[in-house]
């Protein structure tokens, strides 16, 4: 009995190991190793040329320098806001694609949402700049319509950054939302309607509980993308953007202070982890369930 079962089990384990190997290699070489290196970097301080000592100085700088604090919080708040706005915008679109325009029309609408993503993010963002800059299309149009006396600068505002972030994130919110809404049986909605529920009650008691894993998954993805976005805030926000990834970039590239940059990187990682965990706690969900069901 044992003799017969053992080789089978070994083969199964070997197969599993081989299947997982690329993923494990990827994770190990490209994610874990650099982070270990960054971790080591962040906990040391340069005391002289090529002389380093272990220290918490990098983290201390972060907590004592108000600018860093300010940018850190601002990035967090704006990312949360951008995530919520993306959700508000994506939900009706996902509902239309999943429930109203089914079949061919649904796929067509989805492709329309997908097409902009064939263009690189840089080019798309530059497109926004052409539209919004002072000598651009939209300010000229507003001036011509008499809504503004002279063309106004629409770039370099917080609102501009928001627009760019929501636009960039929309697809990543749509995909999990559509798949979770498509799996909602229409007869559940009809049954709720039949039992006396109005539109808002159906949304609150049936649709949102059903789509919760999709909503959470979309929010996690969008939040992480937004928090770690560098290009959009930099291009659309200019000097005023004050995005935390910029601080990291500055430390690594401009100041050549890798120790400080590594510490900032870890702080950003801690921030995104903390906020995702808080979000899951607040909505009473588990990370594994969310990723499996959406």
């Amino acid at each position, binding site marked *: 009995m044992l003799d017969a079962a053992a080789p089978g089990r070994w083969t199964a384990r070997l197969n599993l190991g081989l299947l997982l190997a690329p993923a494990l290699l990827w994770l190990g070489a490209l994610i874990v190793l650099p982070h270990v290196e960054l971790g080591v970097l962040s906990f040391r301080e340069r005391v002289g040329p090529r002389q380093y000592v272990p220290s918490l100085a990098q983290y201390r700088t972060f907590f004592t320098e108000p600018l860093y604090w300010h940018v850190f919080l601002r990035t967090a708040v704006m990312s949360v806001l951008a995530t919520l706005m993306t959700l508000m915008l994506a939900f009706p679109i996902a509902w239309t694609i999943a429930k109203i325009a089914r079949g061919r029309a649904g796929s067509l609408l989805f492709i329309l949402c997908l097409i902009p993503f064939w263009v690189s993010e840089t080019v798309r963002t530059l497109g926004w700049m052409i539209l919004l800059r002072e000598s651009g299309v939209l300010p000229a149009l507003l001036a011509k319509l008499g809504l503004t006396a002279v063309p106004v600068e629409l770039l370099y505002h917080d609102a501009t950054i928001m627009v760019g972030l929501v636009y960039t994130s929309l697809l990543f919110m749509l995909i999990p939302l559509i798949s979770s809404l498509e799996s909602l*049986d229409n*007869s*559940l909605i*009809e*049954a*709720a*309607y*039949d*039992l*006396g*529920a*109005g539109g808002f*009650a159906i949304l609150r*008691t*049936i649709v949102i*509980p*059903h789509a919760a894993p999709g909503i959470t998954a979309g929010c996690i993805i969008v939040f992480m993308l937004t928090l770690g976005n560098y290009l959009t805030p930099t291009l659309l926000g200019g000097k005023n953007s004050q995005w935390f990834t910029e601080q990291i970039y500055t430390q690594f590239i401009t100041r050549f202070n890798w120790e400080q940059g590594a510490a900032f990187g870890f702080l950003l990682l801690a921030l995104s982890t903390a906020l995702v965990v808080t979000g899951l706690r607040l909505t009473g969900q588990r990370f594994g369930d969310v990723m499996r069901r959406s």
Partner: protein
Amino acid sequence: MSDNDLEAAAVSKRFSDHTAVDSLSFAVARGSFFSILGPSGCGKTTLLRMIAGFIAPDSGDIAIGGRSMRGVAPNRRPVNMVFQQLALFPMMSVGENVAFGLARRGVERAERTRRAAAMLERVGLAGAAQKRVDELSGGQRQRVAIARSLVLEPTLLLLDEPLGALDLKLREHMKIELKQLQAAFGTTFVYITHDQSEALVLSDHVGVMSQGRFEQLGTPQDLYYRPQTPFVAGFVGANNRIVGRVTRTDAGLAAAHASTGPVVEITTADGWTIRARSQGAMSVGDAVEAFVRPEVASLGRAPQELPGGQPSHAGDVQSVLFDGANSAVLLSERATRREFRIALPQTGQFSDLKPGESVAFSFEPERAVCFPARPGAAGQDA
């Protein structure tokens, strides 16, 4: 106030290419069990969805409890529906499912929990309130779906083939349970099904529906014993269908069989002659279709064994279809080789019948019925 909980007046619904419901009028008396029986695609689901309010009729009016439902949304109608797939809310417990409608009406939490628990007890699910929906068996879910609707004390409960998803044994059981529940609650039930046995067993009245119209509306006994149209005769219960032309209509035939109605003689294209009660006026040469129920015919090993005074026919046993109380034998008529089904009596007299045996059979002409042939239906026998 009328005594009808549901009144439909000339209700019609057209979809782009066909008429789903065609100027239908009927009434359902308070506290009765009404079934709409028809094959798939006959428009019964459209009709039910119009009563529930999910679809608006193109013309005509539906009144529930004496009040016109024109422009009244589903969530404001005194009607609740048990869906085909039940549509229990998987995100809620059994108790929350039952209390859902009460919550929408603004009933306080403690009160609705109490009423949901009481309703669950009435349907035999006491103490199941905390369970999850997927912990229940098929029959229990069925009862939760009914409880969820009945707790709102609707004027009308609509049921959309709710037994369709169950296996045969449970379906038989639930049929009885549904009838008992309806009797216990006294709520008016409107039930749609394509299963004639469900309709016959459960209903006080049945409307047989085909192509958007009622072919016949009556008690189950009416439909079974006195079908008004060939469709009803063919759809309700098993039937032998024989297509032919009228060859004799004289009064002597009726007298010979002491029948209440006129009896005509029918001859098929290949020359088999039978007699049947005619439904509607007929004259010689008319194309007709006749129906003979399997249990109406008597079987004998020799013509002498048959009851006297009936024209007897000869046949050969093709196959014996043993099915306990529903056993039957499939014969072929001697001269024409036409298939004819006869129910076997429960006496065990024919338990040793073998394929190939010669037998005689006969039936009372007034218990067979014939109709003018439908256009396009004159071809093969069913």
